[in-house]
């Protein structure tokens, strides 16, 4: 069953919180993973792998570098989930 954009944002915020301790309400659509949330590349890959599990989506490695903001990730997951 497809997740709505709102559900993906909430789920992604949980994954970010789980990995980094950043508060879920700080994970907003306009935030940059690196510049605003200070998430390093290893944490980002961990979040990506966990997001693939959580949302039944495949996020290719070459796509990860395009996920600059939270909105980029939410939109990619929403559009590509099974």
């Amino acid at each position, binding site marked *: 069953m497809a997740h709505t954009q709102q559900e993906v944002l909430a789920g992604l915020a949980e994954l970010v919180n*789980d*990995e*980094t*301790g950043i508060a879920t309400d700080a994970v907003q659509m306009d935030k940059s993973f690196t510049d605003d949330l200070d998430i390093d590349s*290893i944490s980002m890959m*961990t979040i990506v*792998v966990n997001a*693939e599990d959580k949302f039944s989506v495949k996020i290719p490695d070459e796509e990860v570098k395009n996920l600059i903001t939270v909105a980029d990730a939410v939109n990619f997951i929403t559009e590509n989930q099974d």
Partner: protein
Amino acid sequence: MRRVVVTGIGATTPLAGDAPGSWEALLRGESGVSTLEQDWVAKYEIPVTFAGQAKVLASSVLTPQEAKRLDPSSQFALICAREAWADAGEPEVEPERLAVDFATGIGGVWTLLDAFDTLKERGPRRVMPMTVPMLMPNGPAAAIGMALGARAGVRTAVSACASGNEAIANAFHRIQRGEADVVVAGGAEAAIHPLPISAFAAMHALSKRNDAPEKASRPYDSDRDGFVMGEGAGALVLESLDAAQARGAKIYCEIVGGSVTSDSYHITAPDPEGAGAARAMLDALEQAGAGIEDVEHVNAHATSTPVGDIAEYTAMQRVFGSHTDNLLVAATKASTGHLLGGAGAIEAVFTILALKDQMVPPTINLDNQDPAIPLHVPVAPTSLARPDAIAISNSFGFGGHNAVLAFRSL
């Protein structure tokens, strides 16, 4: 050469989650060894069903994010290093003059084997990106170095069960030579996992006393049948005497010797003549500028294996001759089990506290002392007679590693 003192101690052990608690439990004659309740014991029919498990879960002390990014060995290391650092009064030191020497015998075995399970069951895509930094044996040292901002060099000694002592000896020499002013030193282990237990059991190194775990670790007793695995970590803050005095630090004692030798005899068996172990003890005393009769207390390696305990006694006789009878010997693994790469570190903490309190801790489970090892091993806390006496702590490891530390009250 500069003089070096101990200004902070920390430990998380099968007896307690900190150094003072571990020491008090040791003086009360408690055992930290208990039955393993984990489901993998029955699942894999593990032949040894007990160990010295850490009294306080590391994950209950650290933040969830710290725990998630650190192998259990690094978790223990970080906890006791923070305790030691706070105990030392958080010395103000230039990052370029602060170093770390922190050991492990086995490394991140939980991380490595969990990751292999993930690979087999779910494929390479699901292997977590943090796997390599978590499993590497320098992980504990690196975690401490990051936490304290150490930039004078973060190093890891890996010499099996001698690792902790070797790391502390390395730290001592670094400060002596002026390469650093403050070093956080010690060792950690977290290998109570079905594979290491099965592997040590396969070589008949472990006690099989499954029906009485708290009686299983019994160094020097006639009925000893192998060692008991333990987990946890110990840490010291070492600094130059000048730096410690300049900042008015509390000083536990001076570290006066740290020697490493090797047997080149057999990959696992100790040299029955004890020549390499004896050289390590003599060299540590030579560094101290001390004679054999200056030694009053020995925290022995004494793992509770039939051959190891005798080989160490033989080595002590080579070193001390007739003075052997005067030594007050403690075999604290009777209470803690054997922490492998963490053993030397927690035993250094116990040796330092023995000097501070002028009290040799009891050795439990010594019901029927082996007549072939007629050492004086107190079974109740026993006062040291000489305030200026030297205490030494021995550690030996598979590979023929011998590492001996010597301490003296200031």
